[in-house]
């Protein structure tokens, strides 16, 4: 009890202030002096006697202060003030240290912020922990399910508190008409219980109910908060308005809360539509089609039911319902429950790996920054040897000295962490902007306490890394030597050894980073400079989003001939073509492939591309055999097809495919057989890593399909044609919605976002680490030269050659560099293994890049070392010997 009371009264500084004690002392001295005066002393003598009798006042104040507050806090405040003074006196050092830390911590925190948003954060819904995704696995790969399957599963299951289905497939690229210029919106189609199961209420109006699922229900829309803001400036009058989405008119009934972004991380729908509108926005009745799998299922576990129990309960249920969804004879199916507390991890699948690689790289950068700072701190501690010696001699405790140095480091870390917070926020935003250039990803990046905690924890860890050893070294100082020394010899051996270890660490980290950067840059180079199978230069691409409603499909299908004619008439256009599901188009249309001799093999599928004449000429894909698709391939002429190399090789081997027949089905049927008239070069279709696969090019005239893109080969810069092309669209049909119009090369480059980001950041960090290493090596060798000045002076005086002296120093450099390189090579090989699956066209045993990186590192280290060693060779022996 007493101890606690003392602690509290000290903590709050109860008791006396300095002034109060002074007053007490004054009264005391006056009374004591009066006493002496009564004994016959003169007033002056009495006062002097009183002072003597009272004892030293300063010391009393000191003791009193120590007792008044907790000594620890007092000492800390003192250290803090001293540290700030020290840093103000060395602004250059302070700036370098803070900047290094800010970079190191900031880079890590930025990655953490993005990782948190992509990988760690829970959905902003009620009790996210009990949400599960019910996945159907086909040979281990998750696939979508049909609506009849969902309906029966939802009705019969006993283990979930609610099960809903969702799909963004029909409305991913929807078009809003009737409110000024046409706009692209993102929609999602959900079952009526979607919001109820998630536990999300409307912030205005109402959300869907089971009633909205009835086939006769009138079409309704729930808006996202962001869309409500963008389109209606948060006007409550939006409720009740009718919006035309892909040609369907539906009434707005509610708005979701601002933090809600749906069930899939990264895709933020602008609006939600209920299942009852399905037949209006999709061609055909998908609600009664067991063969159409397009839905994802999410549910909430009943209290007390574990995911495993639920999975076990759903397995037999799946078997009894298997006929209601897609089931192919040669596949293995099973139901799996996965936690959906973080929603459907679409973004994690896409960006998880690159983010973890970045986290690894920035982690190494932080280590590098710490070891560099440790060396800086060592150098500073050495420069302050005498000061520390004096303080030790005057009776400062060694722990107190170490604590003081640690406080200085903490101040640096705190400043660095503050700067890192700013850097991290900006960096995270930049990363997300970068990642979303290729596709419309949206992430919320609000700063949360976890991010602050991460920065604080990283800063503390960094402080431990860079500050403990130098502080220990300083506290080990030998007082006598420190006071005698001029050059700072004392504590030198330990400091020197520590400095060397740090340099070896820096060299090895640097090599790891350089090797990783070299691999990633090389991989990007490979991706960019591979044969894409088309020639993107001077090609302009105009995207027409696939509006999936029956009316719009009919409408866009009819555009083929008018668009083709109009686009080819634009001046400055060498050739133009229209296509459906072509190159760099997000939508894939697939079919099977068979010949009379060879039915479809298990697992085989083909990409089906509908093209107009001049397609190959426009995009620059060489026809390797036979002919192009031409105007002669009309609807009433024999059905023809152009296949790609891979398909030709698989179907016909070495035989000539021209004139042979194939069927776009599992087994060959002569009535809808297509005659092969040409073989086209293989093409990287969707992105630069896309495997070639089988491709069928069929004439649009014989196989009508909605136009999804117009391609134009320009005579000069294609970007300048964009306004003309947009106007041409409007001429042909004012009701058609044209998306982005940009050079094809931009679409290709946009697909390389991840790779470009990794290559750029790793190269920057690699260069940074190289620079830090150079500085580090220079510092350590310069310090050695300084320490051995006398020895070198003697050598020179005794007739050693200058070259021999610098050789002596370079021997040191070589030793350190080789040690660092060997350690680093191990790290680099580990990095190579971690990155291997991400690298494009990379031979596993290819160590030439590693060797190049090592050579570069050795070169830089040698140059930096030589720069420092030159000073040794240039020493004037007389001066050197005169120095103590």
């Amino acid at each position, binding site marked *: 009890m007493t101890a606690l009371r*003392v602690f509290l009264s000290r903590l709050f500084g109860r008791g006396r202030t300095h002034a109060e004690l002074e007053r007490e*002392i004054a*009264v005391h001295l006056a*009374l004591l002096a009066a006493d002496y005066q009564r004994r016959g002393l003169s007033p002056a003598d009495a006062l002097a006697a009183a002072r003597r*009798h009272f004892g030293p006042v300063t010391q009393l104040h000191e003791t009193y202060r120590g007792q008044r507050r907790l000594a620890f806090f007092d000492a800390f405040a003192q250290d803090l003030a001293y540290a700030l003074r020290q840093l103000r006196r060395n602004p250059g050092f302070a700036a370098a240290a803070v900047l290094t830390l800010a970079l190191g911590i900031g880079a890590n925190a930025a990655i953490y912020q993005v990782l948190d948003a992509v990988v760690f954060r829970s959905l902003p819904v009620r009790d996210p922990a009990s949400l599960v995704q019910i996945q159907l696995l086909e040979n281990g790969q998750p696939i979508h399910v049909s609506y009849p399957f969902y309906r029966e599963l939802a009705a019969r299951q006993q283990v979930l508190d609610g099960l809903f289905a969702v799909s963004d497939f029909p409305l991913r690229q929807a078009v809003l008409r009737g409110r000024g210029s046409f706009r692209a919106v993102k929609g999602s189609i959900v079952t009526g219980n979607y919001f109820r199961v998630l536990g999300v209420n409307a912030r205005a109006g109402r959300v869907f109910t089971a009633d909205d699922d009835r086939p006769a229900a009138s079409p309704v829309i729930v808006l996202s908060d962001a869309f409500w803001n963008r389109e209606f400036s948060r006007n409550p009058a939006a409720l009740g308005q009718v919006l035309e989405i892909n040609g369907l008119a539906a009434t707005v009934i509610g708005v979701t809360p601002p933090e809600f972004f749906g069930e899939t991380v990264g895709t933020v729908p602008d609006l939600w539509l209920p299942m009852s509108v399905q037949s209006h926005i999709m061609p055909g009745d998908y609600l009664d089609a067991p063969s159409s799998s397009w839905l994802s299922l999410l549910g909430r576990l009943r209290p007390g039911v574990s995911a495993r129990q639920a999975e076990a309960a759903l397995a037999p249920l799946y078997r009894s319902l298997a006929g209601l969804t897609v089931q192919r004879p040669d596949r293995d199916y099973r139901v799996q429950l996965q936690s959906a507390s973080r929603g459907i991890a679409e973004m994690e699948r896409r960006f998880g790996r690159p983010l973890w690689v970045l986290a690894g790289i920035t982690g190494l950068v932080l280590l590098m920054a710490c070891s560099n700072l440790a060396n800086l701190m060592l150098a500073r501690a050495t420069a302050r040897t005498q000061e520390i010696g004096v303080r030790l001699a005057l009776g400062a405790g060694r722990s107190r000295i170490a604590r003081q140095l640690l406080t200085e480091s903490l101040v640096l870390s705190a400043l660095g962490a503050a700067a890192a917070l700013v850097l991290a926020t900006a960096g995270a935003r930049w990363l997300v902007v970068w990642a979303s250039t290729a596709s419309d990803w949206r992430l919320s990046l609000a700063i949360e306490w976890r991010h602050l905690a991460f920065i604080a924890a990283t800063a503390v860890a960094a402080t431990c890394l860079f500050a403990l050893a130098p502080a220990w070294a300083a506290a080990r100082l030998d007082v006598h030597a420190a006071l005698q020394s001029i050059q700072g010899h004392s504590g030198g051996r330990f400091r020197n050894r520590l400095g060397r270890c740090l340099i070896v660490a820096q060299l090895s980290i640097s090599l790891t980073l350089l090797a990783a950067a070299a691999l990633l840059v090389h991989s990007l180079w490979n991706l960019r400079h591979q044969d894409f199978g088309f020639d993107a230069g001077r090609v302009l691409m105009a995207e027409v989003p696939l509006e999936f409603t029956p009316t719009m499909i009919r409408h866009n299908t009819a555009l083929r001939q008018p668009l083709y004619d109009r686009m080819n008439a634009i001046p400055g256009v060498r050739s133009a073509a229209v296509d459906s599901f072509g190159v760099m188009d997000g939508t894939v249309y697939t079919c099977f492939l068979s010949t009379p001799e060879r039915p479809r093999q298990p697992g085989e599928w083909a990409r089906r591309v509908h093209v107009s004449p001049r397609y190959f000429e426009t995009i620059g894909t060489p026809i390797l055999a036979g002919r192009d698709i031409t105007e002669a391939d009309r609807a009433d002429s024999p059905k023809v097809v152009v296949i790609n190399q891979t398909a030709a090789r698989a179907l016909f081997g070495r035989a000539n495919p021209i004139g042979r027949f194939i069927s776009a089905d599992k087994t060959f049927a002569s009535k809808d057989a297509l005659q092969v008239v040409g073989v086209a070069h293989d093409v990287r279709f969707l992105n630069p890593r896309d495997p070639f696969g089988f491709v069928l090019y069929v004439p649009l005239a014989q196989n009508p399909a909605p136009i999804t893109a117009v391609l134009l080969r320009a005579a000069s810069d294609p970007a300048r044609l964009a306004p003309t092309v947009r106007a041409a669209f409007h001429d042909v049909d004012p009701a058609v919605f044209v998306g982005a119009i940009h050079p094809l090369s931009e679409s290709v480059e946009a697909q390389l976002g991840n790779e470009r980001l990794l290559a750029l950041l790793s190269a920057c960090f690699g260069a940074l680490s190289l620079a830090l290493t150079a500085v580090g090596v220079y510092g350590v060798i310069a310090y050695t030269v300084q320490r051995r000045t006398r020895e070198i002076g003697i050598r020179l005086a005794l007739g050693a050659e200058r070259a021999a002296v610098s050789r002596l120093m370079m021997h040191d450099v070589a030793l350190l560099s080789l040690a660092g390189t060997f350690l680093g090579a191990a790290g680099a090989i580990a990095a190579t293994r971690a990155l291997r699956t991400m690298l494009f066209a990379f031979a596993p045993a290819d160590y030439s890049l590693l060797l190049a990186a090592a050579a570069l590192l050795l070169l830089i280290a040698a140059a930096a070392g030589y720069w420092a060693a030159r000073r040794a060779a240039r020493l004037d022996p007389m001066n050197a010997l005169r120095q103590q």
Partner: protein
Amino acid sequence: MNSVPYDNSWSFLLTFYRTRSILLSMANRAEIPYGTLDLMVLKTLDTLGLQHGYGIARRIEQAAESGLELNQGTIYPALLRLEQKGWIASEWGASENNRKARFYSITRAGRKQLAAETASWSRTVAMMARLLESEP
């Protein structure tokens, strides 16, 4: 004068003399044994009631009859310590020369502590006395 031949016994005596003088000086002008000042202050306040720092210091010196070398300032940390422990309380008042001074008084907890310490101190003294006076 005859020179005294070097003898080990002489140096021994000299050493002994020096040691003894140091011991004597310590005994005559005793510093306050660690921990006893608090007890003295408590006892003083218990006897005299409300007192300022000077009064306490003077009283302690008088009681020791010049057997104690007290830097009077040293009682202030002791006063703070005791107040933090809640054994004494303080208030501002007017001193005999009519200046504002802080007056201290013992609290109930302080009295209890004093009783406990007195008992323990007496036991220690009695024990030491028995130990030192007992004949071999």
